C-alpha cells in the first residue's frame, strides 16, 4: 500500500470516528433495522378475531367451528346474525367471518382490505377445511427450509442486502461530493496524489463499514433471532465483497453526476428504491411482468438477496450459487469501471 493511500485512509478514519452521527449510522442503525424486520415486519398471522354466526347449529357445524378455534389462530367472536357480523367487519373489530346458513352450508369471509394477511388467513382456513374432508387421500403441505414459514427467517437475511446498500451507497456518494463541495478536492488534485489513491482512499473505508454491517446483522440474526445460518461464513463474506463493489461503484458514479451532497443523497434514494423493490426482498421476481423481470437482471441486490436466503436457509454452496456470484462480479466491475472513467473526466 502506498504511503499516501495510508495517510488518506487515516484521515478518513479520523473524520468518520469524530462524527457522532456516523458512529450511530454504522453501529446502531443496522441493529435497529434488523430488530424492526425481525419483530415488526411480519406476514405471519397469529390471531384472527373471527365472527361466528351459526344459524344451523348442528353437531357438524359446531365441529367445524371447534376445529377453527382449536387451531389457535382463529379467536371466535359469537354473533347472532349476519348483519351483526358484517357490521363488526365494517368496524374492523374482526378480520374474518365463519357463516353457516340454516342448511348448514358454510361461508368463510376474510377482510380483503388487509392485503397479504387476508390471503394467509384464507390459506389457513382452506387447510383446516381440507383436513376435515373424509377423503381417502389427505392433503398435507410442508414447507421446506423454513418449516414454520416464519417471515422473520425470510426477511432478516434480506435486511443485510438492504442495509449495506443504503449505508454504503449514500455515504460513499456523499463523501466524495463533500470533498468537491468544500473545495478540498481541488486542493488534493494539486498534490502529487494519484487519482486511484484518492478513489481507493475514499471508498475503502465504506467497504470496511459495509463488511462490519454484514457481520453485525448476521450476528443479530443468528444469536438473537436464532435464524439458522446453514451455509458457510466465507461464502457470505465473498458475496458481501462482490456486493460492495456494486454499491460503492454506484456511489462513485452518483458522485460524478452530483454537485452537492443533497443531490447525491437524492440520487442515491433514486437508486435504492427501485433496487429494493425489484430485488425480490418483498415481492417475488417470478411474479413480475417479463419486461420488469428483464430489468431485475441488472440489479445487484437481486443476486445478493438470492445468495443470502440460500446461504442462510438452504446452506447452498458455490456449485449452485455461482451464477449469482458471477453476475455480481460482472455488474460490479462494469459499475466501478464506468464510475472511475467518469470520475477522471469530470474533475
Amino acid at each position: 500500500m502506498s504511503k499516501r493511500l495510508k495517510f488518506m485512509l487515516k484521515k478518513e478514519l479520523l473524520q468518520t470516528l469524530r462524527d457522532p452521527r456516523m458512529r450511530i449510522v454504522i453501529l446502531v442503525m443496522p441493529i435497529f433495522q434488523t430488530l424492526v424486520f425481525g419483530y415488526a415486519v411480519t406476514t405471519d398471522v397469529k390471531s384472527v378475531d373471527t365472527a361466528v354466526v351459526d344459524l344451523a347449529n348442528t353437531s357438524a357445524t359446531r365441529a367445524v367451528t371447534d376445529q377453527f378455534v382449536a387451531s389457535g389462530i382463529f379467536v371466535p367472536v359469537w354473533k347472532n346474525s349476519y348483519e351483526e357480523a358484517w357490521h363488526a367487519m365494517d368496524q374492523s373489530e374482526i378480520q374474518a367471518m365463519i357463516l353457516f346458513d340454516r342448511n348448514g352450508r358454510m361461508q368463510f369471509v376474510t377482510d380483503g382490505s388487509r392485503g397479504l394477511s387476508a390471503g394467509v388467513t384464507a390459506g389457513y382456513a382452506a387447510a383446516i377445511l381440507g383436513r376435515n374432508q373424509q377423503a381417502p387421500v389427505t392433503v398435507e403441505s410442508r414447507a421446506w427450509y423454513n418449516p414454520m414459514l416464519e417471515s422473520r427467517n425470510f426477511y432478516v437475511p434480506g435486511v443485510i442486502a438492504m442495509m449495506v446498500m443504503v449505508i454504503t451507497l449514500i455515504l460513499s456518494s456523499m463523501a466524495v461530493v463533500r470533498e468537491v463541495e468544500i473545495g478540498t478536492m481541488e486542493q488534493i488534485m494539486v498534490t502529487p496524489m494519484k487519482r486511484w489513491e484518492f478513489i481507493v482512499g475514499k471508498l475503502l473505508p465504506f467497504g470496511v463499514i459495509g463488511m462490519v454491517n454484514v457481520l453485525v446483522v448476521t450476528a443479530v440474526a443468528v444469536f438473537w433471532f436464532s435464524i439458522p445460518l446453514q451455509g458457510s461464513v466465507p461464502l457470505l463474506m465473498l458475496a458481501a465483497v462482490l456486493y460492495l463493489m456494486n454499491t460503492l461503484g454506484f456511489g462513485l458514479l452518483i458522485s460524478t453526476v452530483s454537485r452537492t451532497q443533497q443531490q447525491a443523497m437524492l440520487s442515491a434514494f433514486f437508486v435504492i428504491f427501485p433496487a429494493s423493490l425489484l430485488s425480490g426482498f418483498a415481492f417475488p421476481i417470478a411474479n413480475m411482468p417479463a419486461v420488469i423481470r428483464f430489468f431485475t437482471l441488472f440489479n445487484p441486490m437481486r443476486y445478493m438477496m438470492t445468495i443470502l436466503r440460500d446461504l442462510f436457509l438452504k446452506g447452498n454452496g458455490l456449485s449452485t450459487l455461482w451464477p449469482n456470484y458471477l453476475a455480481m462480479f460482472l455488474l460490479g466491475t462494469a459499475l466501478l469501471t464506468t464510475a472511475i472513467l467518469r470520475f477522471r473526466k469530470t474533475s
Partner: protein
Amino acid sequence: MSTVVRVQGLTKSFKEVQAVKGISFDVAKGEVFGLVGPDGAGKTTAMRILAAILAPDRGSAEILGMDTTSSREKIHDRIAYMSQRFGLYQDLTVEENIRFYADMYGVEKKQQESGIKKLLNWSSLTQFRKRPAGKLSGGMKQKLGLACALVHTPELLLLDEPTNGVDPVSRKEFWNLLYKLVDEGLTIIMTTAYLDEAERCHRLAFMNKGEITARGTPGEIVRLIPGGVYKFKSDNPFEESNLVSSKTGAVSTVFGSQVHVMGDVTEQDIQTTVGRSVQISKTQGSVEDAFVYLSETVYDR
C-alpha cells in the same frame, strides 16, 4: 533573473464560451505577478491551467521548465495552488489539516515536525493548533490555507483571489506574510479583483473577456490612461457621470461624491456637458481608474 513561468498562446474553451483567448506572459523568479480583471475575465481558468489541473486547448504553459500537460506530478511537487475557497477539513484541527497536506506531499516525518512548527509560528496559529478548522475566523482560515499550501516549501505559489471575503486587517496581515515569502525567493502569481491589492504586485496583466488587454508595473498601467484623470465633485454624481460619458464618449466613474473622467476629453468638454461651473482637478489616477478605463474601452493594438 530566471524565468519561472512561461505562458504562450494559452487558449481554453468551455462548450461555446471561450474563457481564455491566446494569452502569453512570463514571470521571473521572486516576482509577484497579478492577473487582474473583472469577474468572468478568465482569470481562474488561466490559473487552473497553470496549476496543471486543467489542460489548455491550444498553447502551452511551462512551469519551472516543465510543461503542464506532460509533467503534472513533477510540477505539483514544486508548486502550491490555493483556490478561491481553499479546501480545509472543517472537522479536523489546524494541526491535523497541515499534517494531512504534508503527508499528501510526501514530506518526511522528521521534517514535518520542524516545518509545521515553523508554519504555525509564522502564521501565528500556534495557540489554535488544536481547534477544528471550521471554528476559525475567515482571516485565520485564510492563513491556515496558506500554511497548508506551503507545507512542502514550493518554489511557485499560485493564489486565486486569496483574500476574497477577508476583512481589511486580515488582508494586510496576509500580505505581510506573502512579502516575507517573496523575500525568501518565492515567486507568486495571483488573481485579484481588489485594486489596492493589484497595486502591491510587482507586475500586472489586465485580463478582460479572456484576453490580456494591458500589462506592466502598476505605474505603467496607470500611465495607460491617456491624458490622465479629471475629477470633480457632484451632488448627483451618477447622473452627471452618465451624462458625461454618453455625450463625450469618455469613460466616467463615480467614487463617493466624486466623478472621475478618463479618455479623449478636455476640461472644457466636461464643463459644457455638465452645464454648470465645476471645480475640476486633474491627477494621474490610480490602478483602480486604470482598471475601469481598461475594462470599458476596447484596447486595440
